[in-house]
């Protein structure tokens, strides 16, 4: 009991303690703000990637694709843990706007999808500008639904001159050329034109928030993409299957089940035409599939944490110095305490509790200040932009909306715990020194 009383007393009476509290509060505030924003951006980015591909992905990186996907889709549709499945064609194409400056063409990635299915598996519907409510109409140009439509990634659309409403963009026509490939990966139609070309008409724009998808991807109707890529005969092929599990099904567990299903499916099909293509197919969860994009941002978050850790070492030094000073001044008090029977452990516990109180108080103050600042961070940025033209992230360069400002409980807890540990670490050596003080020496008449 006396330990807590003395710890509180030292906290309130020793003004030098305020500096330790100030230093730790400052560090906690900065770390809370930066880590909340970083974590928010990383989570947003992960969520966008998750929305882009669903929960589980089956497929191959090869442009040749794999056959018998329709049979496997039927099997998956019958599973009680699968919500929806979407077959995807992915390839590269050359696009050219007819009627525009001669010779202007661009290499893009094409994604052939069945919009209705795809909208159930991914967040595709929510990314569209005009057909959010009914994603099945994504490839139906408003001016003539019978024409074959295309959906442009937002940034690609801007480069193609698709701006403003339907009125200005409605007549955009693209010629899309692809290399048709045989199941062996060789060029189909050898000796002829080597490429397939078809005309598509603008029907919608997709803003997924992913730079690569929005900057260089166009979406085409699945059957048309299959034709362009030569994947419609003799056995129909697809590049990927995106799968969404039903609510409550864990992604890793769901992917394992799908993996087992696929293994059995491949065994049943062995010996059939083009069945060797099935061996190159992998089953992975969305995180593994998108790891090339997600891993770097997670790594940056770790690096930032390590750098803050290094700077936080200074805070340890401050706590050390403050406690060193306090113990230096309170050596007589400690001598008195020990002379009336307080043990070494008890003395050490006293100062550790004191350090704990500093850490706790500073964490609350720092986290509260950080929470308040984060509440207003977007308004502050808006004000700075309005008066000084300053924006933390230029929105014309970065695909960011509002700055994330919701402090997660996990982040706050980790920061608070780290602050307390830092205070305890800084106070450890002085506390041990205080515990070892000899009352005979400290209470000697010449010392008093």
């Amino acid at each position, binding site marked *: 009991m006396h330990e807590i009383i003395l710890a509180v007393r030292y906290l309130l009476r020793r003004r*030098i303690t305020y*500096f330790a509290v*100030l*230093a730790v509060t*400052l*560090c906690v505030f*900065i*770390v809370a703000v*930066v880590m909340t924003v970083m974590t928010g951006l990383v989570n947003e980015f992960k969520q966008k990637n998750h929305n882009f591909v669903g929960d589980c992905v089956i497929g191959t990186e090869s*442009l*040749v694709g794999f056959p018998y996907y329709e049979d496997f889709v039927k099997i998956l549709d019958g599973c009680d843990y699968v919500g929806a499945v979407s077959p995807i064609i992915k*390839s*590269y194409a*050359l696009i*050219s706007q*007819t*009627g525009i*400056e*001669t*010779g202007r*063409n661009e*290499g893009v*990635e094409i994604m052939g999808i069945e919009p209705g299915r795809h909208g159930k598996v991914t967040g595709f519907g929510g990314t569209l500008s005009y057909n959010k409510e009914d994603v099945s109409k994504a490839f139906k140009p408003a001016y003539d639904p019978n024409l074959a439509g295309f959906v442009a990634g937002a940034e690609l659309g801007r480069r193609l001159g698709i701006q403003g409403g339907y009125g200005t963009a409605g007549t955009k026509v693209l*010629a899309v*050329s*692809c*290399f048709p*490939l045989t199941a*062996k*990966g*060789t*060029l189909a139609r050898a000796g002829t*034109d*080597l*490429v397939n*070309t078809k005309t598509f008409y603008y029907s919608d724009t997709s803003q997924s928030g992913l730079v690569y998808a929005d900057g260089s991807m166009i979406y085409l109707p699945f059957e048309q993409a299959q034709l362009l890529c030569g994947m419609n005969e003799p056995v129909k092929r697809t590049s990927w299957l995106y799968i969404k599990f039903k609510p409550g099904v864990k992604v890793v567990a769901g992917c394992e089940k799908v993996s087992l299903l696929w293994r059995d499916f491949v065994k049943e099909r062995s010996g059939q035409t083009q069945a060797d293509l099935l061996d190159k197919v992998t089953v992975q969860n969305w995180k593994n599939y998108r790891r*090339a994009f997600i891993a*770097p941002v997670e*790594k940056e978050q770790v*690096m930032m944490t390590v*750098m*803050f850790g*290094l*700077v*936080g*070492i*200074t*805070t340890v*030094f*401050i706590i*050390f*110095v*403050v406690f*060193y*000073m306090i113990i*230096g001044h309170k050596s007589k008090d400690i001598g008195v305490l020990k002379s009336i029977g307080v043990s070494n452990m008890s003395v050490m516990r006293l100062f550790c509790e004191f350090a704990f109180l500093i850490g706790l108080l500073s964490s609350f103050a720092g986290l509260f200040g950080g929470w308040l600042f984060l509440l207003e961070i977007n308004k502050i940025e808006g004000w700075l932009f309005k008066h000084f033209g*300053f924006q*933390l992230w*230029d929105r014309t*360069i970065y695909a960011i909306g509002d700055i994330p400002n919701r402090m997660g409980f996990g982040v706050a807890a980790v920061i608070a715990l780290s602050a307390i540990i830092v205070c305890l670490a800084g106070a450890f050596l002085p506390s041990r020194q205080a515990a070892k003080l000899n009352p005979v020496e400290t209470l000697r008449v010449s010392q008093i």
Partner: protein
Amino acid sequence: MLKLFLWLRYLQKKKIVFLSFAAVALSVALLIVVASLFTGFINAFERSAVEMIGDVVVSPPTRFPKYPQFIEQLERLNSVKKATAVLFGQGLLHLGKGDVRAVEIWGIEPARRAEVMDFKSVLLRQKGLPGQPSFEVQGQPGKIGGFVGIGVLAEPNEKTDEYDFKEAEKMTGRQVVLTTGTVIENKEGQQGQFKRKTVEFTIADIVYSGVYYSDKAFIYLPIEELRKVLYPNEDGQAAKQIQIKLADGANVDAALAQIRGVWEDFASRQLGWDSYLIRSTSIETAKQMQSQLVAEFRKQMGVLLLIFGIVSLSAVLLIFCIFYMIVMTRQKDIAIIKSCGAGSGSVASIFIGFGACVGVIGSAIGTAIGYVITKNINVVEQWIRIIFGLKIWKSSIYMFSRIPNEVDWASAKFIVVLAVIAAVVGALIPAIVAAKTRPVEILRYE
């Protein structure tokens, strides 16, 4: 002399002062490393732009003929050393079974290009050979040769992020198919039709510039061959851009003005262009073209340094605490010094000077640490990869194969000055307390 003596004494007796050195050194080192890496990246980014497209770029709104005459007129200017023409296209490169890549096609004159920028040094096969680079295919005269970026042919190793150059060089001599396209005008007034064009060419050399995006997506063909593919119905030469190397020591603004004068004269007399087209031609330096991105990078650097700087302010508090403790425990010393005739200002200057010393010594140590870490950052990154299996720097993310490792001395000086000022500020209040010491009260015998 007395000050020096007292400083050394406090250092000997109060070993806790070394903590303040450590805190200042740590903060300074971190800030120098962050500033140097960011500045190094920005400089590398600007340098890569110059190495890619020259000092100055003339980009008319549409392609134009008779570019050799324009280049000749440009090279007559004192401020221009060399110029070369470029034609652009986009296409799909078929490399083999199921292997199709979207590529950017540059039609170039390799010999001229080597004089405008250091193009020969990025060619794996020809960089060690005498003479100018060319598209000639070894042992296959008459074949159309092309250069292909190494990233088009292969991916860097997942763990080391390095290309297998020997494997890449084996691809030279291979024939590949490029599909591009153009709109062919049928009759006057009628809408043109998009026509696919395929070009079979032989890989004459591999390009490795160290800039991920250009190695990943670029192929180079002879400008004339590309012109025949893209604009088959036109006679004569065509270019989309002129890339210029300025003479050493040339004034950039003056050079830009001169180049614009030559362009306006050429476009109106030789091409018969109207004033709108002439004015729409962009003539700017490579750095100006990257200025928006560079400004964004600098802003991010500023924000990061500000954040770390604020956190490093805790070093000021540390110095305050330590000096306050020294003043409180050395009150008798101070009282004796004052009783011997030292003024308050003199006493204060002892502690302020000591604070400045802490700042100077701490900054020196921090600068040394920052220098060593920055210079060896690639080695450090390699060791982290070997020990933890974590590849921090990837060219596909950060653009360059190697982390730029030049120390930014301008920023380092600024950081050191700030650190010394911060240390002095930390020592200020304890110095004032020391100056206000009253010898009568301190030395009273009780």
